[in-house]
Every structure is written in C-alpha cells, then in structure tokens.
C-alpha cells in the first residue's frame, strides 16, 4: 500500500484516491487496534504510589480521559486523523492510526482515587496513583528489651 510513494510524485495522474483511503482504513483498523492493546502501557511501583505510563504520540492531552473505578484504571482518548476534512494535503503513506481508544488495566494495589495526577510530556502520559493508606508499607519498630 503506497509503499513507493515517490512513484506518485510529481502527481500527474491520481486515479484512485478514494480507493486508497478505504484500503488505508481497513489496514489501520487491523494493524492498530486489533493486534496489540493500544496504547502501550507500563506500570511501575514506587514506595507510596503506582506510576502508569502510556505512549500517546499525537494525542491532544485535552482529549485524554483518566478514571479510576475501584481497582481499575480506565484511559480513553482520541487521536485525530493526520489529514482533517477540508485540508488540501494528500496522504501518500499512512501507518499511524487514528480514532478513539479505551484501555483498562487492573491495579495491583488499592489506590487513593482522589489523589491521582496525570500529565502528558513528549507524547507520553504519566499517571501517578498514590497508594491507599492500607497499601503503603509500614515501618515496624523493633524494640529492645
């Protein structure tokens, strides 16, 4: 699919843009949203919190929705198409997917849902979830006789 985009430059004849578009859409759905969960995520544990990161390049941070429901973290968002309606740009190669996504992950420890913080930097979302008091490590004092 459009593997030789140079072949279409300079564009003298472009017979099947609509067909290409349909093909791209099929390709996108299969490759992007079925093969592996999207977006890719990491979960790290620190002493007082869990830190979840997600690769969300090109996703407007405003479109991201982070929710904690019990011990499930729900991340939803929208990645806009690279060529918006009304643009004069022609898409010669398309590998990046777009559309809506939702991913849920089970949290391994209880967290304090009210204290969750999220920020987006360089296309990576970082969600910090403070552990619930009962899930934090406790220091046990050793008394000597």
């Amino acid at each position, binding site marked *: 699919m459009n593997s030789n*985009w*140079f072949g279409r*430059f*300079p*564009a003298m004849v472009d017979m099947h843009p609509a067909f290409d578009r349909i093909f791209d859409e099929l390709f996108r759905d299969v490759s992007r949203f079925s093969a592996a*969960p999207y977006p*890719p*995520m*990491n*979960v*790290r*544990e*620190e002493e007082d919190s*869990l*830190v979840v990161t997600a*690769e*969300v*390049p*090109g*996703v*407007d*941070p405003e479109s991201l929705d982070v929710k904690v429901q019990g011990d499930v973290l729900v991340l939803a968002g929208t990645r806009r198409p*690279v*060529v918006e309606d009304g643009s*004069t*740009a*022609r*898409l*010669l*190669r*398309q*590998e*990046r*997917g777009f559309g809506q996504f939702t991913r849920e*992950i089970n949290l*391994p420890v209880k967290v304090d849902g009210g204290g969750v913080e999220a920020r*987006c930097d*360089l*296309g*990576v979302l970082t969600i910090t979830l403070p552990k619930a008091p009962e899930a934090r490590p406790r220091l046990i004092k050793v008394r000597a006789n």
Partner: protein
Amino acid sequence: MNPIEARDATVAAFSRVESRQTTIYSPRTDVLEFDDRMEIKLDVPGVAADAIDVKFEENTLLIRAIREENASGGYLHREFGDAQFRRAFTLPKGLDPTCIEASLRNGILTLSLPKAEEMKPRQIKVSGR
C-alpha cells in the same frame, strides 16, 4: 521447620529483566503532500528534541531518535522501554534538501520538505476573447 533461604538467584533474574535493553523500532510514519511541500510525520513518543538526529546524504534522509527512560526500576508490567527509532527515506527529485525543517510536538517528529520552485503547481491563465 524450613530454613529461610537467600533468594539471590531470584534477585539476579529480576536484575536481568531490569537491565537496560534497547529495542530498535521502525516508527510509524505518515507522508503528506501539500502544494508547496511534503511532510513526513513520525511517532517518536518520549524522545527529547536533542536526542533526534536527522541527516541527509546521498539522496537519503536518515532519521534516528533515542529514548532513554529515567525510571530506575520497579516495573510490574512493561510494554515499552528504551528505544532507538530508525527510519530512512529516499527523496524524490524536486524537493529541496537544503531547506528541510524538523519540529517536535506531542511526541510527533514532523519533517517539512519544501518543493523546488519548478515543482510547485502553477495557475495558468486562460486568455480569450
């Protein structure tokens, strides 16, 4: 009663998992054509601008970006990590390689390649009576 055993082997196994492994990725890329330029857009999440190297040589555009995670460890689940993003494109004639611009936004690297003057579309006036 069983003795308490030192689990050094287990710790070592964990250390291996935690040690730095760089994966080489071919970043997903869109290519767009405008009247006056082409744009190459690559997904490079987590890469800082100063870790991106764009080179043009022998008619080939080489893009390399390196991502190093700051986190020291403690991973419970891991789907991405240290990475090298690499991609190369052969440029068609009619683009001006001396004027390539690169910008980074929201984890997307955009390379803008202006068309040479003679390749830009031109409106031809029709004269008649």
